[in-house]
């Protein structure tokens, strides 16, 4: 029994060590992050991103500090080379891009993001979420955004196939998406960063816990009584021995 407990304890310590190492070693400047809208979406189909056209998506961010958007891409074997450009705007009609990122098709790789959740390891090497990261948008909570993708081809690519973008039917999607305004939505995930301080954790917990002071009082009493009873029972047993 004691041995088993020791093993469980050791495993827990290893686990904590791994997680802590993850925090220290991860390369992004956004130390904490979580996936929000669209995560774990099962992609229903992919559609080609045709030259001269763009594929876009409106969404409402549910949390502050939006810092990453991942879009599902499918890269055919004989893919048309060129640049995949991601634009993020306040709305479809906004003149200015909040974010603009381009990536060469040949540079697209299965990502290894520490905030991927679930791990998307079942995805094939040519089908994955392509993540774009940017400086956290501090006031993103509740704000509507629009992102779109366009493809700028290199010359002499007529026989190759265009890159494909994943999409899902509106009712099934975007977990957390407050506005499903289109019959189809792009398969995408967003990640938000946690920008608090360690002290905030205790502060927020205490605030949330004390919102219901009636319960917190009863609960606290219950825990104290149980602990005292347990100590009493343990000491009584020791005394007898």
């Amino acid at each position, binding site marked *: *029994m004691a041995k*088993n407990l020791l*093993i*469980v304890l050791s*495993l827990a310590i290893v*686990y904590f060590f*791994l*997680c802590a*190492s*993850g*925090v220290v*070693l*991860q*390369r992004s400047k956004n130390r*904490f*992050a*979580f996936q*929000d809208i669209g*995560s774990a979406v099962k992609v229903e189909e992919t559609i080609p991103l045709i030259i001269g056209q763009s594929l876009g998506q409106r969404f409402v961010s*549910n*949390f502050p500090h939006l810092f990453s958007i991942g879009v599902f891409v499918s890269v055919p074997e004989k893919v048309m080379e060129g640049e995949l450009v991601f634009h993020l705007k306040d709305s479809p009609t906004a003149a200015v891009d909040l974010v603009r990122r381009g990536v060469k098709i040949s540079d697209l790789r299965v990502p*290894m*993001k*520490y*905030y*991927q*959740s*679930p*791990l998307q*390891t*079942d995805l094939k090497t040519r089908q994955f979420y392509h993540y774009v990261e940017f400086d956290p948008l501090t006031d993103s909570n509740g704000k509507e955004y629009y992102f779109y993708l366009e493809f700028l081809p290199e010359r002499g690519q007529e026989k190759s196939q265009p890159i494909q973008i994943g999409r899902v039917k509106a*009712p099934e999607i*975007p*977990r*957390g998406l*407050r506005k*499903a305004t289109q019959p189809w939505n792009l398969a995408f995930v967003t990640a*938000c960063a*946690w920008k608090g301080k360690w002290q*905030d*954790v205790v502060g*927020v*917990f205490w605030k*949330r*816990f004390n*919102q*219901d002071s*009636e*319960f*917190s009082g009863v*609960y606290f009493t*219950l*825990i104290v009584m*149980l602990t005292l*009873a*347990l100590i009493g*029972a343990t000491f*009584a*047993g020791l005394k*007898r021995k």
Partner: protein
Amino acid sequence: MGKSPKENDKDFNRTILKWTLLGLLIRFLIMPFTMHTFDLFFIYYFPFQLIDKGVWDIYRFIPEQFPGFHLTYYGPVAYFLIGFFLFFLKFFLPQLGNAFELFEGWLFTSGGGTVHYASFLGESQLFRTLFLFKVPYLIFDFATAFFLVKLAHNQKEGLFCYRLWMLNPLFLHSVYAIGQLEAVPIFLTVAALYWANLGRADVAVVCLILGGLVKVYPFFLVPIVVFLSSRDVKERMRLFGVALVSLLLILLPFYFSSGAAVMDCIMAKAAVSQVVGGTFRRAFFILAYFFLLLYAHRMAAKRENAPILNQLFLLVFLFYALLGLLKFRYLTWLSPFLILAISRDRRLGWFCLVLLALMAEVHLSGNQVQWGLLDPVYPTFFASLPISDSFLASGGFPLGVIQQISYRLSLMILVAMIYRVWKWQRIS
């Protein structure tokens, strides 16, 4: 000089009391602060319709009220049982209606993860609700522990089972942290083992049918109990009759009311989510199952039922797990039977530990089943904490390969466990 039986009993009771207090303390510390997506609120939302609006046929209510909704409720026993508890709990939850209104708005429109539910329910007495929603589980949890002690051969084994049950990580994770209904069918399957051991196979069969009408898996154990507990065909037919009558008594009123919709609570859960898998897997499981039935038939009435029945229950679950059909949290189903087995065969405990570690790597990926369970405490913080796989991912390790290796190793451990449990007959 040795202790008298009376002193031994006193010591036994004192130890049980101590471990009960420790078990309660652990559970109380988990209960108000953990949740997993919409699971717990989903379990209570529909029974709330029973006590609030008098909706007794939930299987008609769901498609009528929420057309296109892809889920149905658990079995009727779960519905009425939770409704019964909620009838009393609602007096302590004045903001429950408000919480369910918010919940409804999300569940049937946009879904969401734990971080969403923990955020928007934070203003509606979330900790109190989580705590009270999990209180009924305590009854089934401790009743299971009671039966485990009763099923053990002697006080020493009984104490071992009780201690292990109080610290059972699978149960604490699935039932108290995730908030799933597992406590009820687990109690009913252990109760079935207890009654079968006392020679009351009919009560055991009813327990399993009731359990199956909460979550489907106890149905698999009915034929095993019937085959092992009956001496002749007549007795066997009688027991199957008891099973059928108790099943129909509960299902027929719903069938007359809403047609085949009620069957979704069995078929959708069993056929779609759990008994899927390739043809080979299914064929292998069916073969193994029939082999176990044959074994039960051979062993029928030859000796004391409990060890053989425990062995057979375990083998059914282990075969099920071997075929990749049992995810990490469903290993909880076999945990009481494993604990009984480990109390006699300690080496099996080592196999279990390794298996748990490997299956955790395979099935517990993602923040929502790890740190994310603590989202009610501070949603965005706990949803953001890296898990072990985050470290591996950021370090460039091939996660897919690691998971594949873990999966293959877990299969090997399962085969070894099946072999060991099969040979367990000698030990028992």
